[in-house]
């Protein structure tokens, strides 16, 4: 006798049940990391415009988290926790980092700006790993241990 394939809803139910019975729990959250600034989330691009001066950007957003040595790039970074994940006896959190890179021309006016989103995760078990911007931690590009976003990947 041929078996009937499972419907997506049935599959989802089985997956949820398996998850719950095995001790897997995902708690959705939406808060900033305690060390993160809170004025550099998804709303930043609306505060930026091509042609703005460096002074205007600094007066709007405040001190950047990183800047290039020649001050032609300012980086604003905010980190949010989006979920707490518990899987058996292990726990961790999943988050997102907003990285806003503002680039200025030689006259100190905004030439372009872009926002990068990177998912981050941290496990609390012994074999924990932290996934981050490894290129941000390189010490040879900016004042604050950053590195050029395009060269660093």
């Amino acid at each position: 006798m041929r078996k009937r394939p499972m419907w997506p809803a049935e599959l989802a139910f089985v997956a949820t049940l398996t998850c719950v019975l095995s001790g897997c729990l995902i708690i959705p959250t939406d808060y900033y990391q305690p060390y993160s600034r809170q004025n550099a989330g998804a709303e930043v691009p609306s505060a930026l415009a091509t042609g703005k001066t460096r002074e205007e950007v600094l007066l709007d957003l405040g001190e950047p988290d990183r800047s290039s040595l020649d001050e032609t790039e300012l980086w604003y970074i905010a980190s949010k926790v989006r979920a707490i994940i518990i899987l058996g006896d292990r726990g961790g959190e999943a988050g997102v980092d907003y990285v806003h890179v503002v680039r200025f021309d030689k006259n100190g006016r905004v030439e372009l700006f872009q926002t990068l989103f990177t998912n981050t995760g941290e496990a609390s078990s012994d074999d924990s790993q932290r996934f981050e911007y490894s290129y941000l931690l390189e010490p040879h590009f900016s004042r604050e241990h950053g590195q050029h976003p395009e060269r660093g990947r």
Partner: protein
Amino acid sequence: MTLKSFRTISALTIAILALASCASFPHLPGDRNLLTDVTSPGVSREAVLMKLGEPSSSFESGRILTYRIGEDADGYFLMDRMVRWSNTKYSVVFVFDSNGHLQKYKMIPVR
């Protein structure tokens, strides 16, 4: 749910609560007048540096200085950038003219 999972959840909950509401870094006592003398138009860069010390960053050869400021019940206090933005409530930006006199300043809420 196993006992081990319950313990993990409890530990994580306690950790989150501690980080969210209880964690703090040592700082000088708050001072309501910390910025009073250095935010008048025309004040010199030297006066700002003498009062607030080394800025957390500077731009355009020192024309623009920034400081990280926290706030408690007693007033404002300076924060070290080593703790990132923990306990920091404002980024204060000072802009000076070509003669080194304060042209404008702004307190930008960061948290």
